[in-house]
């Protein structure tokens, strides 16, 4: 298990380095951002100067070698825009995104677990239909649209939550709800399916044949098995939360990696883009390790082999 994990970790980090390399070259394809950072009347001399200080004039391979050398020391360079180390620029906001993601994901799993179990228990009944339809609807709503309409109604018309920004607890409502939309929709269905399958499985049947109480069947025997698909889908969805974070960042001005990355792309802040990709990727790699570990805890077949 440990060997498996460490092997996965190594190959993931290799993949991650690959990603950063790809992003490096993608970034250079967009050309030098000299005009963005220089005055409108800037002379060619100033532009050359700018490119020289930032190393954009060197042949690509030289830039690349320098880049690789720096990254080996976890130095992603300095943000042209924020004038501070790119890694700091990213890591200073990452906790915000992480917090938001953890809150949204925890709530999503909780809500999905409740709804999914309910639907599975009332299989084919009106409650099941309602929940299934509702979860499909959740997964079909564009998050940005939901966010905008949410601001319009909850913040502007009703004034119950602030429009944006991060202040008291009420300011969390809309961003978290926006982020939860897709995971709740998908996870509810996964929970439902997994629970139905687990409840119909042979071991639950045979436990029933021994006269174990229904609650015990559901919560001890079925849920732990149903947890396996839930864990893997939840892991996948958690990684996808970064997408939502970009939207939440722009609409609610929620400080976080999403906003920073979009701004970095807009501002051609290569160092921050690369650092951001690295940090996000690393986060996702660690998330995958976490998922694997959780999986192993839940499933002895994984743990023991």
């Amino acid at each position: 298990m440990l060997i498996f994990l460490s092997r996965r970790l190594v190959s993931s980090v290799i993949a991650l380095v690959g990603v950063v390399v790809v992003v490096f070259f993608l970034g250079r394809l967009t050309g030098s951002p000299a005009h963005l950072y220089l005055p409108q009347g800037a002379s060619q001399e100033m532009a050359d100067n700018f490119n020289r200080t930032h190393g954009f004039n060197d042949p690509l391979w030289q830039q690349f070698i320098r880049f690789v050398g720096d990254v080996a020391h976890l130095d992603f360079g300095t943000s042209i825009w924020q004038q501070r180390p790119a890694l700091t620029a990213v890591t200073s906001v990452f906790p915000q995104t992480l917090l938001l993601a953890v809150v949204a994901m925890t709530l999503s799993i909780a809500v999905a677990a409740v709804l999914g179990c309910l639907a599975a228990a009332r299989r084919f009944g009106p409650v099941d239909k309602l929940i299934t339809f509702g979860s499909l609807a959740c997964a079909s709503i564009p998050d940005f649209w939901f966010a905008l309409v949410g601001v319009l109604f909850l913040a502007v018309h009703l004034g119950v939550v602030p429009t944006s920004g991060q202040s008291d607890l009420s300011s969390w409502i809309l961003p978290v709800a926006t982020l939860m939309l897709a995971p709740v929709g998908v996870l509810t269905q996964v929970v439902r399916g997994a629970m139905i399958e687990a409840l119909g499985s042979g071991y639950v049947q045979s436990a029933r044949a021994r006269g174990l109480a229904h609650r015990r069947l559901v919560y001890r025997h079925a849920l732990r098995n149903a947890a396996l698909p839930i864990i893997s889908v939840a892991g996948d969805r958690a990684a996808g939360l970064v997408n939502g974070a970009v939207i939440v960042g722009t609409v609610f001005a929620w400080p976080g990696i999403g906003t920073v990355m979009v701004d970095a792309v807009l501002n051609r802040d290569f160092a921050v883009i690369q650092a951001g990709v690295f940090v996000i990727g690393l986060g996702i790699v660690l998330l995958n390790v976490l998922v694997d570990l959780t999986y192993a805890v839940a499933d002895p077949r994984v743990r023991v082999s």
Partner: protein
Amino acid sequence: SPGGDAQAGRTGGSAQTLTIAIPTDPTSLDPCDSQAADGVGTLRRNVTESLTDVDPGTGKVVPLLALSWRQENPTTWTFKLRPGVKFQDGTAFDAKAAAFNIKRTMQPDLGCLNLGNIPDPFTATAVDTTTLRVVTKGPDPILPLRIGWVDMVSPKTSMTAKTSHPVGTGPYTFVRRTPGTDMRFKRFDGYWGSKPQAREVRYVFRSEASVRAATAKTGEADIAVPIALQDATEDERTRSYTQSRVFFLRLDTDKPPLNDLRVRQAIGYAIDKKNIVTALMGRTGKPTDQMVAPTVNGYVTGYKGPAHDPAKAKALIGQAKSAGVDTGRRIELISRNTLFPGSSDVLQAIIQNLKDVGLDIKLTELDDNAYKDKIHATNSSGQPVSMMAVSHDNAFADASFSFPKYLSSSGTVSTIRDARLDSLLRQADVAAGGKRAQLYQRAARWAYERNGAIVPIAEQFSLLLLSKGVDYKPNGLTGIELPAAQVKLGR
């Protein structure tokens, strides 16, 4: 709680925090980049000040950190500085500090954006603690105006690197910026002038226009600036101000069909400015025939450009076509996403007009970087023929901040190669007062009538929204400076 600040405006509490919602993080916090404020001033007049200021009412240059100035000879000026001024870090502001700042700003390595307004760098030396001598390369009649673009930072600031923690002489001290979130200033007790009302200033970044407006509507922010037309309220909480900003099209002149004067003129006739601007820009726009606002000395009073006349446009294009010009060639109309709120709609409407007279136009909206690359590519033969949508402001009201860039052969963003224009502009540049205005106006008239590479569309006005109980009178400078001291918070 950290939320207390945001709630302050809403509750009218005693925290006396002024919250201003602006679209984005300033790209740079170095005061020598303050002209990039992009429609919203933050640092200027709050954290930093310059030697001179402009009276937004009269357009006159007025004293600020300099008490008076004198032109010794065509290229030498002396400034008498205000005594007893201290930087926020305790350093005294004196002539040395001023000279330091001028040197710092002029240094090409630093790449200060404010240099865009200072085409010919000048030098300065401290004569004594309060006397500063400035020497220009050539005669510059508007130096006192230009020197206003040198924002004074503490001499402890690095000479070679831009700072992200500006220290100035203004009424507020820069506290911190959280990228993507907010920026905070607090009152500077050692300020030389009168003490402003708000103890703290907080800028929050809200890129979504409707959300930004909503912050002022709900009281989360005291001021939202700028706001879009459709978010404006009917009452007097919505204030409009001009930045002497004009929206025009800059046409290529080196490639067919735009290298033909008739086609360029036809474009002027084809666009139904009046209709488009009224319908789509409302109170944020006014059709104009000139590339500068009436406040600018290059504005030709009474000048009328070509009226909307599609038939004439068609005829002109027809003539060009029969003269062998490839009028069917596709022209790219290049703009940027953030040109102004609703710019995309306006451009689409313009394209509709141009299509109606038989031109093939395609809209391309670029991000800032690509846009700036394009606007600097003034005669790149490899590029497809294009016209650029430009929104240009001239807060200091001198045509020299506009015309040389756009009209002269050496202008960094000019597509015009016209010897007559060049000589007019050269003369105007060194002239002063009425003669200067007259020369600029002649150049402008020539450009509009004989060249047609600039197609003015609308004079632009900006809107800001005040929260209930907040008072602030915006002016022509609001776009680059919004002095917190001028804002009255309720109760």
